[in-house]
């Protein structure tokens, strides 16, 4: 652990401020709580919101896992994991089942999360209505009055134009049948995992200075129409490495002659399955 830094980098006052915002966020599921996001030693868009939330909830006995697009070994995940290993001295892991805190960008692990785990999402844009309503004041009024017809206009337009809802990630959800929420840019495939998840889900948006949360076992419904129900999309292949037909797949180009394979985006899930097969 590096000398000269407070535990988990942030000073205690800042962590308290973030915890207060987190408590409010848990009390009103899906509602965005403003907080005074600090400058972090990495650029906006690389997970400053998620890091601040993780720093505020991390304890000495925690085990941290960080994933980026499902992978433990990408630059972003490695950097953030090392950051907390250095500034907090906490144990780190790549195994979903062993982690007590999981910070994620763009995925929810395939392994079902438990009640004693917390998942922290990095959020670039917390406002689900931002592409539809440019005024933040108007957005807040719509949230306050639960007027979400506009979001359905967007879904209507997609179906009219493309025959289906053309949102593949950051697919808007209704939390606790009250607040419209942006689930962060996870694939729509992961949306059903949020519904009544036993683990606490926290969302941090650093640049936009917003925190929101979904308490354990809260209903999370993806928006849809009665005659066009929500359908999570998955590439219709099996993982080349582990053969999984259930997990979310990444398409990987293998050469410049059109060769490509599909592999699990969740590296821990894939590796665990490969080890089982080998044994």
């Amino acid at each position, binding site marked *: 652990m590096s000398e000269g830094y407070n535990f988990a980098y942030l000073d205690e006052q800042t962590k308290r401020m973030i915890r207060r915002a987190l408590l409010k966020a848990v009390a009103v599921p899906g509602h965005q709580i403003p907080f005074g996001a600090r400058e972090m030693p990495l650029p906006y868009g690389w997970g400053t919101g998620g890091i601040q939330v993780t720093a505020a909830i991390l304890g000495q006995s925690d085990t941290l896992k960080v994933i980026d697009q499902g992978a433990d070994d990408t630059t972003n995940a490695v950097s953030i994991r090392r950051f907390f290993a250095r500034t907090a001295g906490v144990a780190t892991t790549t195994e979903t089942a062993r982690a007590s805190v999981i910070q994620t960008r763009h995925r929810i692990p395939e392994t079902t999360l438990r009640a004693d785990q917390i998942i922290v999402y990095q959020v670039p844009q917390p406002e689900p209505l931002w592409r539809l309503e440019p005024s933040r004041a108007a957005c807040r009024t719509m949230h306050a009055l639960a007027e979400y*017809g*506009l979001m*359905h206009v967007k879904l209507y337009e997609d179906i009219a134009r493309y025959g289906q809802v053309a949102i593949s990630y950051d697919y808007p959800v209704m939390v606790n049948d009250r607040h419209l929420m942006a689930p962060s840019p996870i694939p729509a495939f992961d949306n059903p995992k949020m519904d009544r998840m036993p683990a606490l889900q926290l969302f941090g948006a650093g640049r936009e200075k917003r925190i929101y949360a979904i308490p354990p076992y809260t209903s999370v419904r993806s928006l849809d129409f009665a005659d066009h129900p929500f359908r999570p999309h998955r590439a219709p292949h099996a993982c080349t490495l582990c053969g999984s037909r259930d997990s979310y797949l990444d398409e990987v180009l293998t050469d410049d002659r059109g060769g490509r394979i599909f592999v699990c985006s969740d590296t821990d899930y894939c590796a665990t399955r490969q080890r089982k097969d080998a044994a």
Partner: protein
Amino acid sequence: MSDDTLLSARDLSLSFGTLRALDGVDVDLWPGEVLAIVGESGSGKSTLLNVLAGRLTPDQGHVFYRDPDGHLADLHAMSAPALRALHRSDWGFVQQDARAALRMGVSAGGNVGERLMAKGARHYGEIRAEAARWLEMVEIDPGRIDDLPRIFSGGMLQRLQIAATLVTHPRLVFMDEPTGGLDVSVQARLLDLIRRLVGQLGLAVVLVTHDIAVARLLAQRIMVMQRGRVVEAGLTDQVLDDPAHPYTQLLVSSVLQA
């Protein structure tokens, strides 16, 4: 006010600084009736419309609206959510500039369906069928349901706005210069359409216009405003054929006879 008025306003006054935009105005509107408010620019007619629709709060006076259950509510004492709910379902607002009222980046069908979805419609097929039906009602080819309003003509835009407003079957529609800025032949067609729809649906309309001919064609009753005051009110034909107030006489005589 009597037991069956839809909308009643008493003694409305509103000043912008030293300018008295409204000065002791009374309004009564009965279900299924078209009331025209005429007057020249700056006479306070648009201000009156905005006060009646709850968009502006008067310095003095009250506006009462009878909801479908028969309860009388003071508009400016209502909570913001209740007023917005009223605007979304029971009321409609047609403004002069259709481009400002419509979503130009959303298809015609989406624009008409917006109010349905805001009211809670969640069946794509039904929303689309209803939108197509309404496009036909306002004489827009239902085949253009997926076209963007951007490529519509001015008259079509105005008709689209009317469809998008009437789709939830409001009981009361506020219209602010609905035919303004359109050429004469398009205007005539639009007026025909509005008159037909108002009759078919039994709408109550508060219509603001500076065009006496529009008022004569659509309205049963008329109010003539000058400098924030109502100078003359009564049945349209009576007021326009036999104007009593000098200002009304001036208005009527200034219309070019074809």
